[in-house]
């Protein structure tokens, strides 16, 4: 159950230690990042600041980014405002729900 933290020397990007899932809520996107091994949570907390996530999605997310931390679950959770071109029913985007945003974040270098 309680696995030790990952040795990060062999790991390159966030994708090596976490999964991500995004979804829509009106014109806001939600994005959760969950450590594959819960003990790696401190890496997520350190790496995934609101500023870093907002910068990663510059040009996509127009509004602020709010972070919620869930250390007991090994997860950080983001709400990204003004991120979906007005929301799923009127967006011109191919991925109107913002479902693909989560994968984009996994490219962040550790």
């Amino acid at each position, binding site marked *: 159950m309680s696995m030790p933290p990952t040795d990060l020397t062999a790991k390159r990007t966030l994708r090596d230690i976490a999964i991500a899932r995004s979804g829509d809520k009106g014109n806001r996107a*939600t994005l959760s990042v*969950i450590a594959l091994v819960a003990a790696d949570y401190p890496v997520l907390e350190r790496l995934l600041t609101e500023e870093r996530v907002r910068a990663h999605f510059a040009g996509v997310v127009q509004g602020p980014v709010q972070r919620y931390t869930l250390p007991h679950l090994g997860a950080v959770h983001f709400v990204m405002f003004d991120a979906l071109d007005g929301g799923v*029913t009127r967006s011109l985007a191919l991925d109107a729900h913002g479902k693909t945003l989560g994968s*984009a974040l996994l490219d962040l270098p550790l």
Partner: protein
Amino acid sequence: MTPYRIGSGAGYAGDRIDPAVDLAERGELDALVFECLAERTIALAQLRRATNPAAGYDLMLKARMRAVLPACVRNGVTIITNMGAANPMAAGQVVLDVARELGIQRLRVAVVTGDDVLPWAQVHNAPLIDSSDSVRSLDGRLIWANDYLGADALLPALRAEANVVITGRVADPSLFLAPLMLHFGWAADDWPRLGQGLLVGHLLECAAQVSGGYLADPGHVDMPDLHRVGFPLAEVSADGSAVITKLPGTGGRVDRLSCIAQLLYEVEDPTNYLQADVVGDFSQVRFSQLAPDRVHVHGASGHARPEQLKVTLGYRDGFMGEGQISYAGPGARARGELALSILRHRLQDAKLSHGLTGLEHRAELIGVNAMHGPQLGADREPYEVRLRLAVRCSTCAQAEAVGQEVEALYLNGPAGGGGVTQSVREVIAAASTLVPRSSVRPRCDILELHTGH
């Protein structure tokens, strides 16, 4: 008290049917819930009803009922679904018709209505959520208004021991919470318990998203047999804690990752998850793996439900025209970019653009920058690209011109374009407001099938 067994038979309108049949047959379930109604689905259903008063229910209702009714009736599994969409009463009749066709002799269908609040929306001027406008700003364009009913609206249907409970707009997790409240006798103001029941509904409402779907990333997160992924079920105890599991022999996996990913899915503040029946607090939820594909969940709580119910308003918002064309092989990207530049020149020139000049649009290359723009887009040379032009238009004729512009790239654009597609759709946009509970009157009608001797 033995656990209450509740399964998830669909996580969206087009979801697979076979996993639900498997649950109905082998799940030893008390209830099987089909959540099939999203903002876009109800908008399309409302449009169908507007052109045909007998239509407007879920397009897959007949197929799903044909597939699951025999096993559900045989095994005493209550079906709960929002497949009534924009026309629950017509949907109830369809269920009876299907039952007759199948030779089922007795069936009780409960139809829950009261979610249609268009008359209220037409005379009140409530402020819109996330907007500085109010409902009146949609005058002349408003075509439907549905509030999210809560579990309380379903209780009379369940008390009547209906075999099938069919609704329109109901808060998704409430479809699951209602039978739990009735079975365990949870009070409507037992907020911590309702919060835990809400969590069970939230974990199940997207079906396979908690049992291995939407999680695989080959080499990083491997997932067995997604071609026959099992839909989830929960074994719920009287205190609201539950075991999330799936049927033996099915694909996918229920584990810590699959459950946490679904716990947070489309939730904003985890301490404050606003729903019709209770404001959920998921911040202290704990999962523990009891065995393969068996995860125990507890620790959710809740606060008093909101005084008002959320209403989604659908309004006409013009048209969207779209065209696509592909380029492949060496230089595909350069040719795609040339094609984009040709389109941009034409859109900018009022003499050439067929009325499309100055309209909001997206012009992009699928395979390069269509998902996340130039910053995150690929800088490698792709083998193939697909140009996509989408334009927001006020008329259908304008929207048709968009695809024609892309199609004309065949003879007038770069070398080797192929596979043009064109589409036009009327945009029914959604806005939200709040309605006082006192203005909402849920109603339950019972339809009976009773044949034979």
